[in-house]
């Protein structure tokens, strides 16, 4: 019992307490009185919220589609043949994970600047000549999805590859004997057997995606107003806290995000049963 004490203290102080405090703030007035749902109504009717929701929604949608198609595709491909080279390839996919966070955003700002980008030819081909054109508001959801995919996909490919390795080889061999080609095997045997992991990846990524903060915040600082300071929902809640000093409304908006994350977490643990640790 004493063994778990330090961790339980940390968990209570920096997990449970802040969440409880945020909920308490969200239903209070700045003077400390009970506010009911007033703070929630105020943030929901904020004119910036619909834009933020659409932005984050578009970003999450693009990102999840990319993850679903390319992570599963690349895991299947590198699982299928040339095992020596595939290992190298998987490491290459995984490497950008080291640059997660602000470094990745900076690197991609260079990649999107046609004057220095190695892919300048590609950018020019789609009619982009300047950095301002690259980071036009209509491109941002796609850009943030590319950055998130670039840093995170490799880790998921490794996980999917591990899941593919767990499929008994005699199952695949039996299908081969029955004359199934690689496509058929992927579609009818491998995909159904790793479906649970794909679902897990999408759900977790959905939860992470709704919390988008670093990418739009950095791009907003670099472009000085080129990118809206309330591009994502998390940025908007920070505007409430820092610019208006309105902790109650900031907390109300955050409680919405918290509830979403909590629902997702409980769903994964309860429904998907990936972490059935007591087995």
């Amino acid at each position, binding site marked *: 019992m004493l063994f778990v004490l330090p961790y339980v203290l940390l968990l209570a102080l*920096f997990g449970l307490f802040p969440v409880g405090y945020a909920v308490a703030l969200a239903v209070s007035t700045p003077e400390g009185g009970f506010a009911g749902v007033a703070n929630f109504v105020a943030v929901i009717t904020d004119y910036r919220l619909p834009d933020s929701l659409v932005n984050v929604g578009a970003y999450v949608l693009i990102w999840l589609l990319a993850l679903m198609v390319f992570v599963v595709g690349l895991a299947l491909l590198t699982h299928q043949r040339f095992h020596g080279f595939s290992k190298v390839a998987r490491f290459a996919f995984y490497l950008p994970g080291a640059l997660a966070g602000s470094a990745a955003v900076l690197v991609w700002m260079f990649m999107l600047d046609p004057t220095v980008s190695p892919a300048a030819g590609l950018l020019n081909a789609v009619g982009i000549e300047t950095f301002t054109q690259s980071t036009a508001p209509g491109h941002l959801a796609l850009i943030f999805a590319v950055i998130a995919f670039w840093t995170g996909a490799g880790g998921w490919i490794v996980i999917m590859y591990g899941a593919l390795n767990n499929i008994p080889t005699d199952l695949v061999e039996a299908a081969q004997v029955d004359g199934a080609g690689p496509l058929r095997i992927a579609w009818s045997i491998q995909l159904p057997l790793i479906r649970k992991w794909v679902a897990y990846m999408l759900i977790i990524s959905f939860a992470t995606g709704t919390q988008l903060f670093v990418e739009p915040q950095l791009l907003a600082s670099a472009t000085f107003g080129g990118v809206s300071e309330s591009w994502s929902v998390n940025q908007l809640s920070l505007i409430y806290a820092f610019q208006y000093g309105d902790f109650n409304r900031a907390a109300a908006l955050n409680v919405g995000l918290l509830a979403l994350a909590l629902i997702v977490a409980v769903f994964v643990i309860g429904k998907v049963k990936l972490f059935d640790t007591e087995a």
Partner: protein
Amino acid sequence: MAVTNNALDVTAEKTTPVGRQQRWVARLTPSWMIGTALWWVIVLGFMLFFVVPVLWLLLAPTKSDHSLVHEFWLSVGGWTDLSTAWNHLLAYQDGVILTWLGNSLLYSLGTMVIAVIACMLAGYGLAVMEFRGRKTILLLTMIVMMMPNAVLVLPLYLQAELMGTAGTPWAVILPMAMYPFGVYMVFIYYSTNLPRSIIDASRIDGCNEWGTFTRIALPLGTPAVALVSFFSFTSSWNNYFLPFVMLPQTDQYPVTVGLNNLLTSTPAFNPTVGSSGLSIYRPELALATLMAVVPVLIIFLFNQRALVSGMLAGANKE
């Protein structure tokens, strides 16, 4: 070497002594070759997508801004340009970049030490002992582990404002040391790798709980210590949101937040900033970015195995 497409005949293959080669030839069907060609196109294409930006970042600091714009991106610069970029970067706010790197190191190592101690103890306790509240702690651990870190940042900030700890290093170190993923990894590690009989034997030999942990479990748990250290260090080193919110003073920034500060004072992406004699251009910015990722990049390069096995911690349990 009579290699023709007739070798498609699979029945012949098994009877010949050179079966291995025949079998290889037997796969040379048109569809197999198209498949292989596609395989290389797709896999190499994605390798380029993932690796080119990293390569660019490694090369950019060795070049002048002029050659970044006018030379082929794979060209290698020289020491002169690298040292120019280095001197410019060090001149920025009296070498504040070194302060940021030092801060990053302090926060990440501080987090790592506390997280490793707390995770090893808790993971072990949860794996080998029965006590009231054990299931609740496990469930809470998994719930918090599944929740994105970012969602707790604002509540943590509000809490720090309440307690007056905002602006101190502890406001970032302690929350980051609360590391449910680490507890879960250690828990899985001890549940699968530490036979009950060893613990029972040590108890019979007169070891108390603490002795069993320090003399038996901890020496056997070094791989878990390594895993938690790597993951905790890299995730706190890369953390941006929490220190951004908690630490208001420039000289307290970790390097991730420092990069943001550099960005706002360079004309690299926004010409309207104007050159205020700061000399922070693209090579300097690239050098700062590279310095910010080098520790984690090294960890990634030399600990691939450990990192991959950690990522699979959940998968293997399946």
